[in-house]
Every structure is written in structure tokens, then in C-alpha cells.
């Protein structure tokens, strides 16, 4: 799966939880889920669950710890898809 496709799917996943819509206009690897999109931390757990469903992977607790930006999520997805 290309990086572009992962990020496109990710954008769709996070959309319902975003509280700062302006942050979505410029959705890139540095986009921070909490600071830029103002997703609250309970909803960030929802994002993790939705990512597991969408990509059919399991995100362990160690990986979840570091899932703070779009780039973090992309790397975790890539790593899990490859394993």
C-alpha cells in the first residue's frame, strides 16, 4: 500500500473526531492529532481502534504510546502491514 493511500485512509478515519476543522485543510505527516486537530485523548483511542479495523492490524500498547502525529500513525501502519 502506498504512503499516499495510507494517509488518505487515515484522514477519513480521523475526520469524525476532529474538533479543529481548519487542521484538516493541511493534513500531512507533521499534523499533530491533539494540537493541530484537537482530537481529545479518549477519541484518539477510537482512532487507534478504527485504524486496526481499516488496515486489519493490531496496534500493541507500545506502538499506541507513540501515535501522536499522522506520520507516527503512518509508520506504525507500515510496520504492522509488513510484519
Amino acid at each position, binding site marked *: 500500500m502506498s504512503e499516499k493511500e495510507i494517509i488518505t485512509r487515515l484522514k477519513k478515519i480521523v475526520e469524525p473526531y476532529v474538533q479543529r476543522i481548519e487542521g484538516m485543510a493541511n493534513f500531512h505527516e507533521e499534523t499533530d492529532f491533539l494540537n493541530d486537530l484537537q482530537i*481529545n485523548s479518549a477519541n484518539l483511542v477510537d482512532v487507534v481502534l478504527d485504524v486496526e479495523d481499516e488496515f486489519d492490524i493490531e496496534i500493541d*500498547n507500545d506502538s499506541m504510546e*507513540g501515535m501522536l502525529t499522522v506520520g507516527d500513525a503512518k509508520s506504525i501502519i507500515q510496520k504492522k502491514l509488513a510484519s
Partner: protein
Amino acid sequence: MIGNDIIDLKVSLANKRAENHRFLRKIFNQDEILTIWNSKNPELMLWQFWSMKEAAYKAHQRKFNLARKLNPISYNCSLHSGDISGTVEIERETYILKTVINPEYIHTWVDSGKNIQKVYDNKSYSRRDLIQDIILELGLNNSYTSISKDLNGIPSLFLENDNKSIPFSLSHHGNFTALSIPLIMC
């Protein structure tokens, strides 16, 4: 140590969570899950634990100047008798928490013995009110003040005349903003 967390129940209770095993397992350990399921109101218990973890997280990050992490499961909650206060353990550190629960919100803060809490309705909340309240509560003279945040996003009130910073913890959710501020600093 300082840290707090507010939960707007109108927002959080809109989505039932206590039966969502996958959600629970990402956040809570087995003991916490059992306490949630055995409580009279599992949804409330779940959010009480969550607010304890969040408040302790803020205190812990602040104490050790740690980078942000999404690791709620590493924070282990237990309740004291009466259920309105509890303990959170993380990496051999222990934080004592107090919680207020009413029909509108849950507010939890790290209890250092001497701190003040205030909950604002966002309809009438402004940053100026917040600064005024802090000045009033701490009995400071009305010197020039500003709010600054460090690299990890932790806020402090800077008193320019005294060249002194007073750290505080602020939590926003839904319709509410909650403040916790230590009295020991002044």
C-alpha cells in the same frame, strides 16, 4: 504536584463504552475493568478512572519533564473508601487524586493538600477571568501577568513584577474548563 482533568458528561455519556471490550483493553487493566463492570454505574466509573489517569498523567509528565505519550494503560488506578478519591501508580510513582462527580461533569485533580480548583462554564469563560481568579485566589497584587506554555505544553502564569512563574493545570472538555492551582508556590 499538579494536574487535573474534566469530563463533560453530556459529551462522554453520549457514547456507551463500558461494554466495548476493545476500547476498555486499550486503556484499563484487568482490575480496573472488573471494578467498572461491578460498579453501580459502569459508564461513570469508566470516566472517573479515565479522569484519574489523565490528571495523574499531567502531573507525572510535569514532574519528570517527559515528552507526550498515549499510554493510559500504564497508569494503574485504585479507589479509596468512599470512591471519591483514589490513587494512581505509574513507574513507581504514586499520585493521590480527588474527584468531584455531579450530573454535568467529573473533575479530578492531583491532591497535594493545598490547591484550589475551579470549574468554568465555557459559555462565560474567558482567559481574563481565569487570570483574575488566580490573582484573587492566591492573594497576589495585580502585577502584569501573562500565560506561557513550555515545550511540552504545560501552562504557567508569569508574574512580571516578581519575575516568578506559577504553574497551573487547565483542562477543557465539551462545555467546561477546569483549573487546578497549587497554593504552596506563593
